């Protein structure tokens, strides 16, 4: 068996540092998702509007965010805010901003899709039962939408966690950055450590994302 240099993980607090880095990634994703969900629901409802101007504006927002590489967005917010606005924000804050802007767009599109997938006769039979439009949304439309939405938004969380691997580029010390630091520090003693350490990082991402993804699948089955 080739030397994977796994021993470096057990030097000092290296494993703990790696887990700490993972926590940074997960924390940023969770905060961003927590903000994205309410904003996305709002955006999704707005996107079903019949007003052509509102439709066009939200469409452009969504397409723009999707087309732009997240890394470019991160650079714009992190470096751009300093040079253009003269304010200095932390890498973590910049990450949360970008992930929220991205998550809101994706979430909005999911909400829009879930809303328009509710058949028209659900609205009509609610109306025939004398439910006002507000009550129709509260008791009939939103509960059905949420059921369709939860599995999809859980998948969005895993996508966000994976995408946090980009934020080391704006100086956030997350799991991948910690891995790099460990490898650098042990370049002399364990020159082969890169493979083993990155493999461990891969495993950590998997351990976090796999249960989330399984949960989404189960919920999808249960409510589908």
């Amino acid at each position, binding site marked *: 068996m080739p030397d994977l240099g796994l021993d470096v993980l057990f030097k000092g607090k290296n494993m703990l540092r790696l887990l700490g880095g993972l926590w940074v990634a997960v924390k940023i994703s969770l905060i961003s998702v927590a903000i994205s969900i309410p904003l996305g629901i709002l955006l999704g409802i707005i996107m079903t509007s019949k007003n052509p101007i509102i439709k066009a504006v939200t469409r452009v927002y969504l397409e723009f965010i999707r087309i732009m590489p997240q890394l470019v967005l991160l650079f714009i917010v992190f470096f751009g805010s300093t040079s253009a606005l003269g304010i200095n924000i932390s890498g973590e804050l910049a990450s949360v901003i970008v992930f929220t802007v991205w998550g809101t767009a994706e979430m909005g599109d999911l909400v829009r899709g879930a809303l328009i997938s509710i058949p028209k006769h659900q609205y009509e039979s609610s109306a025939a039962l*004398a439910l006002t439009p507000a009550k129709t949304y509260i008791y009939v439309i939103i509960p059905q939408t949420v059921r369709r939405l939860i599995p999809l938004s859980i998948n969005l969380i895993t996508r966000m966690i994976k995408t946090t691997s980009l934020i080391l580029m704006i100086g956030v010390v997350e799991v991948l950055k910690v891995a790099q630091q460990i490898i650098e520090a042990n370049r002399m003693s364990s020159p082969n450590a890169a493979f083993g350490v990155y493999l461990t990082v891969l495993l950590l991402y998997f351990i976090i994302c796999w249960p989330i993804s399984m949960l989404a699948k189960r919920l999808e089955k249960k409510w589908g």
Partner: protein
Amino acid sequence: MKIEHLTKSFEDNVVLDDVSFTVHKGEVIVVVGPSGCGKSTMLRCINALEPIQGGKITIDGDEILYGSKNLSSLRQKIGMVFQSYDLFPHLSVLDNILLAPLKVQKRKKDEVIKEATELLERVGLGDKAKSYPRQLSGGQKQRVAIVRALCMHPEMMLFDEVTAALDPEMVREVLDVILGLAKGGMTMIIVTHEMQFARAVADRVLFLENGNIIEDADPDTFFENPKTERAKQFLNIFNFERSKEK
């Protein structure tokens, strides 16, 4: 209920052209006519699910106006059942029935549960209260939809081709429920393609074609001696179908 000069069009296409009739308390009106004659649209207009271009619909003297503020209180007087059994899939049978009485009429929960259970019992679904719509057959769903509408204590019921989407063997169980309602004195407007049922249940038959009422008669007169050539032709189609089946 009074319908006066009701006119409805989708863009340039006139669907209902100056339709007028009065529904008396306890009367069962069956509306028949070829597909696309405006039968369903008429029911939808009566319950203000569609905006209308002209005319006036009133119940107990109050105008039912699309988009008006008091629509919710007027709609409580009208129960409606649709062709596509439209139960709420995320709620159990009982919760489907309870939703509007509790949230719109703000009635007491135990009282409504009692009534809902009795009504379910009466339509032969006493054991289905905890089931979800996806676990029911089409005929069962449609009976639940009828109970759901009845639980609001409507003054009248509208049935929009409620058996059209059902398998033939389930049609009967739904029609029996409606027949029972007719015997109980419920005011109803029924749109249907089931001619034998129409004859059995109706106090009055309206024959609609191209958005006009061209016959308005008691069922015996309509089915035996239709006045217009169009109604004769229409009824002949059904006779032919029946003779073919034999």
